[in-house]
């Protein structure tokens, strides 16, 4: 990466950072000026202070819930990729199965959460993983399947001209060509997995979980703790997204959206 590129990256990040800081300042100022009650909306400074005071318990809760999210992400994305491979390899099966995948995606996840808790047990982290997995499955399936099937027909013709069979075409063309789509699905799933885990915890879970912490803090009108928990949950979601995006850059340095130089 050249100096110019690094400078460009920094410049890209400057504007969002300025907007973020302005937003925080504005929030702080408005709450102070209009004297908003703390249970309605605490000041950012109060949330930050609470975050610091409760850092140990919040951090442990965050890690606990993140592990559930990670497990659900691995399970849901893994099954999504597997289904996409099967649906792309056996097109009629894919056509026959897609309506059911769409229907599964239409299930309100809120309605699903108590059932998973009932099946696997309130305190069993797998009940939350299952909910996160259901949320992750669909975007990964849809994107990967699209990546595997929407390949330039001439790229396939070319492989056939080399007498390559279906398995070779899959391995050398369809799978590499699908990677940008796969990562698009994984990035969506990374954020959804954290949401899924917390939704599951809202219907019951150990007090060491972040969702339960937020729920209990709200119930006892300890809103600064609830807000600190929400901030932490978002931070985990963003970091997870960032990690998947970094993996994407490593896996697909050739993707058109990241091309650096052209010679002509």
């Amino acid at each position: 990466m050249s100096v110019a590129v690094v400078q460009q990256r920094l410049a890209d990040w400057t504007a969002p950072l300025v907007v973020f800081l302005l937003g925080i300042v504005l929030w702080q100022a408005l709450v102070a000026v209009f004297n908003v009650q703390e249970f309605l909306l605490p000041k950012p400074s109060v949330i930050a202070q609470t975050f610091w005071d409760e850092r140990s318990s919040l951090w442990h809760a965050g890690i606990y819930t993140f592990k559930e999210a990670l497990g659900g992400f691995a399970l849901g994305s893994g099954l999504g990729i597997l289904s996409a491979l099967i649906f792309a390899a056996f097109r009629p099966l894919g056509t026959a199965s897609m309506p059911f995948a769409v229907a599964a995606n239409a299930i309100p996840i809120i309605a699903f959460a108590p059932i998973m808790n009932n099946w696997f047990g309130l305190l069993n982290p797998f009940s939350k993983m299952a909910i996160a997995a259901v949320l992750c499955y669909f975007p990964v399936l849809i994107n990967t399947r699209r990546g595997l099937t929407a390949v330039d027909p001439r790229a396939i013709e070319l492989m056939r001209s080399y007498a390559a069979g279906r398995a070779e075409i899959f391995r050398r063309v369809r799978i590499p060509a699908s990677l940008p789509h796969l990562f698009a699905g994984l990035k969506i799933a990374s954020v959804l997995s954290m949401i899924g885990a917390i939704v599951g915890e809202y219907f019951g879970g150990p007090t060491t979980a972040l969702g339960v912490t937020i729920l209990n803090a709200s119930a006892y009108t300890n809103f600064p703790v609830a807000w600190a928990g929400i901030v932490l949950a978002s931070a985990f979601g963003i970091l997870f997204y960032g990690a998947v995006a970094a993996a994407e850059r490593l896996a697909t340095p050739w993707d058109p959206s990241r091309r650096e130089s052209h010679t002509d």
Partner: protein
Amino acid sequence: MNDGLAVALRDVSKQFKAGVTALTGIDLEVQAREFISLIGPSGCGKSTLLRIIGDLIEPSAGSVEVNGKPAHRARLDHDYGIVFQEAVLYDWRTVGKNIALPLELLRWNREKRTARVKELLDLVELEAFADHHPWQLSGGMQQRVAIARALSFDPALLLMDEPFGALDEMTRERLNLELLRIWDASGSTIVFVTHSIPEAVFLSTRVVVMSPRPGRIAGIVEVDLPQPRTAHTREEPRFFELVTDVRERLAAGGVDLEGAA
């Protein structure tokens, strides 16, 4: 290389499912070492015919032989290489690895592959670009990579579907000369689809003129320009006579060259 017929088409026709007749009654023999152009307007089935020779599309009727065997057998035996209008390079592979792909499928070992890729990069004058990615190259350079890839396993027959159609005129003329040099060096037979009359005349030993709806052969022009062809070939009176001849046959085959409705 091999003597005899590189391609033999007998009474080949093609109907698509929608009831469209793309080709009818195609009889054509291509001798080994020939450079044959298929020329005609859009919809005359010239690209379909090229794909039928390559066993990428099945004909509805008729027989297709390549190097004396059925087209299907010839494809499985890697008897031909193909180049399309777009280079169709695989973005996730470097230039060198794109050229090596057919060799990987043929289970050549790494050492042999590396040596062959180097030879081919020399041939298309892209020695310095082995580790570049396709998108870092200009359109003309990408097309040279596609040609090198098609030649990698030294096929007896090269099928080319308007390979220079998307390039600017200067690049096209330069690559025309380069292709003739490669044709001479590799000893292969070339079947070349184009819609440019001067390009067909300049490159070919014979020009097959096709007419549309349904696609059929309207005539064949023997190109008796001396070999090797040079940049000056395009200025010879005989070149213009042949261009006129092809144009008239296109017109006789029902192709509207006047722009009238």
